[in-house]
């Protein structure tokens, strides 16, 4: 199912504007992540798609037809709630078969068929043997999968998940993440999930929508989002960045009066701008090297797995930057605190 969201606004009582003109299109069968800081409106947007929240303005279309005025029941949307919202007075099997057992008599499968379907779904989410447990007797990851199986039971054309892995530990998260991707590829639902974990969003989804203050800042495939972020917010939100205040004039990029070793970007006007440089986009060389660069002093050196993080300070004006160096490079040239270094820049984004 294709979902179009046109200019959707939503304000809550008390004046908080949760959605502030959301526009996006989600293709049929796509896996989209909604990523953004806390309070940016991700949950509200997901609930608006499901029909649990009515937009004040704007339209939501399923396969080209508006769903305004369609009740939640009629939208056939599978929703996995952040805290699962499992029915605690029902067993796992009853939970999963709920959606089928409440169908009008004419459409309802037989009791045996409902049980068979529930067990099939429990097999799909790898929970065989737990059919007769109550939700309180399950672990967080198991509850999460029951919630998913329950949502899938009504054969929804859209699957909406609100921070599906939020309450789980890192290991379980990783497993479930991969598993959700496989499930998505197998079933072909249109899937939208909310997360505030950028690694999760970038790794799992076809496209990521970065939401900020009730607006879509940038919606793109992960590589593009990371490589060519559309706004300063997206740039600073996704991954670590060094942010420098610069002035562009003629063919130079100046930082506190000194020219940076950068060509002047064509598309940028003269005047003050913000420069974003990722830690791995710096290159750090010894001062004997004849390449032009920024003279810096090493402040701290930290080992972190396969990378070495080096904090440096510009000799000329004291600006601090963080640089990442692969451990192999570091072994070739083990930097020590107090060393002088020449830093060059491989790639930047300027706004």
């Amino acid at each position, binding site marked *: 199912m294709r979902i179009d969201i046109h200019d959707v606004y939503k304000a809550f*009582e008390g004046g908080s504007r949760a959605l502030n003109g959301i526009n996006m299109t989600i293709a049929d069968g796509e896996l989209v992540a909604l990523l953004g800081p806390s309070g940016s409106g991700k949950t509200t947007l997901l609930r608006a798609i499901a029909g649990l929240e009515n937009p004040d303005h704007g339209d939501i279309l399923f396969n080209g037809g508006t769903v305004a005025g369609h009740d939640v*029941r009629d939208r*056939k949307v*599978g929703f996995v709630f952040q805290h699962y*919202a499992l*029915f605690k007075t029902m067993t796992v099997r009853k939970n999963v078969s709920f959606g089928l057992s409440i169908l009008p008599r004419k459409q309802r499968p037989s009791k045996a068929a409902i049980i068979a379907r529930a067990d099939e779904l429990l097999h799909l989410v790898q929970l065989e043997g737990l059919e007769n447990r*109550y939700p309180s007797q399950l672990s967080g990851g198991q509850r999460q999968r029951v919630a998913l199986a329950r949502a899938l039971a*009504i054969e929804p054309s859209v699957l909406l998940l609100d921070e599906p892995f939020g309450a789980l530990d890192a290991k379980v998260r990783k497993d479930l993440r991969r598993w959700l991707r496989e499930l998505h590829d197998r079933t072909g639902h249109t899937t939208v999930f909310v997360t505030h974990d950028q690694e999760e969003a970038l790794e799992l989804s076809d496209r990521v929508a970065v939401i900020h203050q009730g607006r879509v800042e940038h919606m793109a495939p992960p590589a593009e989002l990371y490589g060519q972020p559309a706004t300063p917010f997206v740039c600073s939100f996704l991954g670590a960045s060094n942010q420098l205040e610069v002035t562009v004039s003629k063919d130079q990029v100046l930082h506190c009066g000194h020219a940076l070793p950068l060509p002047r970007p064509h598309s940028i006007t003269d005047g003050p701008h913000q420069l974003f440089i990722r830690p791995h986009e710096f290159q750090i060389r010894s001062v004997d090297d004849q390449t032009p660069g920024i003279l810096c002093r090493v402040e701290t050196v930290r080992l972190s797995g396969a990378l070495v993080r080096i904090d440096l300070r510009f000799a000329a004006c004291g600006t601090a930057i963080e640089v990442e160096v692969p451990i192999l490079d570091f072994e070739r040239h083990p930097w020590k605190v107090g060393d002088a270094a020449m830093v060059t820049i491989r790639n930047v984004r300027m706004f």
Partner: protein
Amino acid sequence: MLIQAHRATSIAEGPTLRRILLGITLIFLTLFLLFPLAAVFSEALSQGLSVYWQAINEPDATSAIRLTLLVTGLSVSLNLVFGLCASWAVAKFSFPGKSLLITLIDLPFSVSPVISGLIYVLLFGAHGLFGAWLKANDVEIIFAVPGIVLATVFVTLPFVARELIPIMEAQGRGDEEAARTLGASGWQIFFRVTLPNVKWGLLYGVLLCNARAMGEFGAVSVVSGHIRGMTNTMPLHVEILYNEYNFVAAFAVASLLALLALVTLALKALLESHNTNTPNAPRL
């Protein structure tokens, strides 16, 4: 854990204090609870079982028992419906005047039962607001069963709602929303999700409501008119018998009420133990 351990040691440190406190509590319990209860039963049975049986089998007594059961049944059912509606509305929706509604639900707790009865006399009595109209249409409320039911409903109004509101509020709307996304209708959500979620709290509220409805004296006394065999409930009947110095009969009927209270207490204890034993049941 830490606090409990700390408490345990501090109590163990003062065995004398513990004994004194326990002693005082036990003396009070015996004096004010066990003695009177035992007195009721011993007085009721003081002239043997057959006299006891006669006292409660006599037509006026059986009529009082029947009326009490009828009034209790009606008012508990009415309060069940009211309590469910009110707590559902308060817990799941926001609307203007919500806190006023919660305060109003508590009103019967703070008003003397006698006044609760008088309100209905003022409204429906012969000289009341609707008195003339009721008389013209041949409807009897005061000094009749409807009045007794009204007064009892009023007095017991808060029990079910008060019990359910905090439970429903704690549960939030999550389960209902989940059921809606799965395609459930309003009724299906109510009967399959909401009601099972609150069933223990509901039973508890009904139990308390029931106990109070059976024992209510003040409000019912004002509206009943004390017509023997017609508008006398058990508590009223006990009073009449007592005022006639018919102690054995009075205590015999009273012992029935006491018995009902004990059964209620036992059921309440049972419910509470069920609640602490099952992890998935809402705490009362």
